């Protein structure tokens, strides 16, 4: 318990350091654009592939579980849409990003720590936490909602292709299903979650990397901890946000 509170305290102090006044806005702007490319655009491929497969599997599973003449087939489309928008696009995307971006961030910052690059920044009078982490936070906050929307579109398209090619549903029924009883707020809910998840992944992973002590082995361990802790925290926040936003 003491260790948990101490870590929580250090995490809060790190956040305070991150959000202190930047030295030079222009440098941070360039860094943010770089992070958008590195963390955001670099994740499009994996998110598209996983979302497509996820949408296909949801459609097929929904179809096989609703093989009943009293169920209209367009409900397959509706089920796929709601599953993807409400949960999969934001949460699963975040879990994938926790693995990809989280380990990347923790190992990058951790390596900078053990090779004294962070000390060098501090010695130059640069706020290392803000310079290294703030652009990552801004970049992921900007790009995570875009990745979530991409995941929704590709997932629903994946469901349509899988459903139509396997013959479990016609394209007309699927399109009717994804339009039926559509609640736009579900998209807003998902995007709000994606913002929280982006913040959690970036800050928890950065925290793990920033306080690494030791050598390459510890950097590897911090990378693993970054993935595990950011996944756990974002799942916890998933429950909290769902209760707050949908109740």
């Amino acid at each position: 318990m003491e260790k948990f509170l101490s870590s929580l305290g250090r995490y809060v102090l790190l956040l305070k350091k991150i959000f202190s006044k930047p030295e030079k806005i222009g440098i941070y702007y360039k860094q943010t654009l770089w992070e958008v490319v590195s963390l955001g655009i670099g994740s499009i491929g994996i998110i598209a592939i996983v979302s497509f497969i996820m949408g296909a599997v949801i459609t097929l599973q929904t179809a096989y579980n609703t093989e009943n003449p009293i169920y209209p087939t367009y409900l397959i489309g509706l089920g796929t849409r709601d599953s993807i928008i409400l949960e999969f696009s934001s949460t699963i995307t975040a879990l994938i990003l926790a693995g990809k971006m989280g380990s990347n961030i923790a190992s990058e910052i951790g390596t900078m720590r053990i090779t004294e690059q962070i000390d060098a920044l501090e010695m130059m009078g640069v706020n290392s936490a803000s310079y290294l982490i703030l652009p990552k936070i801004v970049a992921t906050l900007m790009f995570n909602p875009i990745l979530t929307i991409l995941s929704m579109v590709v997932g629903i398209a994946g469901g349509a292709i899988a459903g139509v090619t396997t013959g479990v549903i016609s394209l007309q029924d699927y399109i009717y299903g994804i339009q039926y009883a559509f609640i736009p707020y579900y998209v807003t809910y998902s995007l709000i979650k994606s913002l929280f998840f982006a913040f959690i992944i970036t800050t928890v992973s950065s925290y793990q990397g920033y306080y690494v002590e030791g050598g390459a082995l510890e950097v590897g361990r911090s990378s693993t901890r970054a993935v595990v802790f950011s996944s756990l925290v974002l799942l916890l926040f998933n429950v909290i946000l769902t209760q707050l936003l949908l109740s």
Partner: protein
Amino acid sequence: MIRVVNINKSFSGVNVLENISVTFKKGKTNLIIGQSGSGKTVLLKSIIGLHDIDDGEIWYEDTLFNGLDFEGKKALRQNMGVLFQGSALFDSLTVEQNVMFPMDMFTNKSMEEKREQVNLCLKRVNIVNANELFPSELSGGMRKRVAIARAIVLNPSYLLCDEPNSGLDPKNSILIDGLIKELTEEYEMTTVVNTHDMNSVMEIGENVVFIHNGKKYWEGSNKDILKSDCDTLNDFIFANSLAKQLIVRRN
């Protein structure tokens, strides 16, 4: 001038530095020597504020460094150049971007002016045609020289070097030592070098401080060191019989 007055530092109850007082003179290469684990890196990191001392005072001219707040320390640090043991160049930046970095952060110079200053510093450390290379493409000696160029790019008053010769062959070590001494005299800096290389001591040690088990045992110049009657210092200097013969022959 940097003045350290009665500083103490401990980690988890273990004293690493005990009542150390020393003055590092302006325009001179001041060396901190001692065997591995003696506390010299902790002393250097305390002087630059990377470790908070338990008690004592660290003065930069008339400014009490350990009495400054975060912003005050930040401002003073812009007047320090630090050379880290592993060079600490930023992996994602080229040689030019690395050297330019402090100017990007703290000056409003135009790109042309910054490039001119970078080239001047790189030329001063004998690095040519390497502006677009990344640190991973440089040899150990080149990395150290680029790090020195970055340390002096803002014309600092203080240059602090942690084991500048570690991992270098003897020829490159002599080059780096010579460069540090030349720059110290040229820019009138207060230079503090942390080393256990006896060659450096004999070449550039104008003011040498010997640390052992966290305590200051001896202070003097490289000319005095061979006449010292401090047994602990003699044990350290003459640990290698070949070194002893070479040093005696040289002097």
